[in-house]
């Protein structure tokens, strides 16, 4: 039995919506907190780590918004379960690597999650669809306040909330959003955006892929500084910058559609062609092509209801979801996964009408295509 049965069904997750969710897929705010008298998890011996775990798990489970949710020690989870949680952005990759003495608590709505003994004793996060940073902050702020009524947390008037790594010191806050920026990537402007945002003390990085590559044109923007700025200031700054990136992305799409419609139609049409007809496909290629399908929905080449289908495919073609949902085997090899992934994609896309530029009206039919 897999943890998937205790999580919201994929069909439900893929129908979640929020403001500006064409471009801002999700918003997240997380806080780092520690107990004042025990060593931080990375420096603690097993006994102290267990002490922190045993003190915190019951308290966290008892917090109002988390009551009736899921609480699991990491040691009880299989590697596949852990990978599923990472693919859902419920726990961090670092936390998934933990075993005895670490755990997590998730609320029923899957909008709040507390990791116990990650890098800090507590990592509490609030996750919402679309651009909802202020709401995400309000939710986690309230949870944190409730927590602090139950346990003392490490705090110094000078340095604020004390954390294992000084990069989190002060507010302990990390505000981030996941952005889909195919327009800026196609227009070759994303490098400029990354540079500009970097100068504001924020970081932009590819969400998937290594180094500078950003698979699926997905990026994460987050604050880097946590000391010397208040939480609302940080949230406000991120929101403003994200709104500007959003505007740049919209402009890039508009300009591509105006100047090079044929290029855009070509990208989307080919993405559909490959996804609907391949017999083996890697997760990397899938991510990149699904991104173009999202773009196809956004610019009107595909009917709007296709968005939820693309969301679903985005989730179920990731390794752990793929294996859990579509295979009875204990463990799949990478090649077996690629075949299975293509089977799922062909099946799901068989009923989808192909992208049609005539949906766009005269703009699409004229299509001189300037390249």
């Amino acid at each position, binding site marked *: 039995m897999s943890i998937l049965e205790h999580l919201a069904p994929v069909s439900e997750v893929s129908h979640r919506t929020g403001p500006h969710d064409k471009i801002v897929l999700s918003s997240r705010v997380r806080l780092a907190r520690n107990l004042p008298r025990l*060593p931080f998890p990375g420096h603690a011996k097993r006994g102290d780590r267990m002490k922190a775990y045993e003190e915190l798990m019951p308290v966290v489970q008892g917090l109002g918004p988390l009551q009736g949710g899921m609480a699991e020690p990491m040691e009880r989870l299989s590697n596949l379960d852990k990978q599923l949680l990472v693919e859902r952005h419920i726990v961090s990759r670092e936390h998934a690597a933990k075993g005895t003495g670490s755990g997590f608590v998730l609320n029923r709505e899957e909008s709040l999650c507390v990791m116990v003994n990650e890098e800090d004793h507590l990592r509490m996060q609030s996750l919402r669809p679309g651009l909802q940073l202020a709401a995400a902050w309000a939710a986690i702020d309230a949870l*944190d306040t409730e927590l602090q009524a139950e346990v003392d947390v490490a705090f*110094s008037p000078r*340095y604020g909330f004390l954390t294992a790594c000084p990069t989190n010191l002060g507010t302990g806050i990390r505000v981030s959003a996941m952005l889909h920026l195919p327009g800026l990537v196609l227009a070759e402007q994303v490098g400029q955006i990354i540079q500009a945002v970097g100068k*504001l003390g924020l970081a932009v990085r590819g969400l998937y892929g290594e180094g500078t590559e950003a698979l699926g044109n997905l990026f994460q923007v987050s604050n880097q*500084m946590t000391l010397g*700025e208040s939480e609302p200031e940080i949230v406000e700054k991120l929101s403003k910058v994200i709104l500007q990136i959003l505007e740049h992305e919209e402009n890039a799409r508009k300009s591509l559609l105006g100047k090079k419609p044929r290029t855009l139609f070509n990208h989307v049409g080919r993405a559909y062609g490959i996804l609907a007809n391949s017999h083996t496909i890697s997760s990397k290629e899938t991510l990149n092509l699904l991104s173009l399908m999202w773009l196809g929905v956004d610019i009107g080449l595909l009917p709007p209801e296709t968005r939820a289908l693309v969301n679903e495919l985005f989730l179920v073609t990731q390794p752990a979801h793929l294996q859990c949902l579509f295979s009875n085997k204990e463990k799949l090899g990478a090649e077996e996964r690629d075949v299975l992934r293509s089977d799922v994609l062909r099946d799901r896309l068989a009923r989808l009408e192909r992208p049609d530029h005539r949906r766009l009206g005269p703009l699409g039919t004229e299509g001189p295509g300037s390249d």
Partner: protein
Amino acid sequence: MECQVCKQREATVHLTQIVDDDTRSLDLCEGCAKQKGVSDPVGFALGDLLQDDITSVLGAIMAPGKGAKDPKEPGEPKEPREAKDAKGGQCGRCGMSHAEFKKTGRLGCSECYRVFGEALDSVLKGMHKGVRHVGKVPAGKAQEPGAPEPVAEAKDQPAGVPTPIPPDMEQLARDLAEAVGREDFEAAAKIRDAIRAAKKSGTGAKGGAA
């Protein structure tokens, strides 16, 4: 006009910043601008909105070698200070040594922040916007007398519960961006003062104890 950095090529990129009531400008050739990462127009569209940050960007360029989080204290050397603090102490509670802290960049427990405090400040300066906490404070901790931490150079006590930025501040920020946009720097400096005053009077998030 020659480039202020290489003093060789013709300056084609012109930047302006406002420091207090002063407007300062920086003229760079294309090569140096690119090298400093300020050549793209998109970047400055973003920077204009957050005036505080464009100041840091320019500060970083004008005072090379420093993180330029605070352009008012330019070029404070990092190295000697760290060396002075490297006296090989150890945290009495968790056993973390100073050497280990320097190597990993992590602390072992909350007590470490007191033990390595001095060495820490120089690290924090390059890392964050400030070296003192501004933001949420646990209930009942705000006015704790005789706090164990060294509170020298404490000009402003940490604020109470964070207050959201009032809407008129947003308007001011927009006005500021607009003034900078039409290169009316006199007006921009005035708006900037108004923002500062509002922040000081406690309407901004840094107020509270003031």
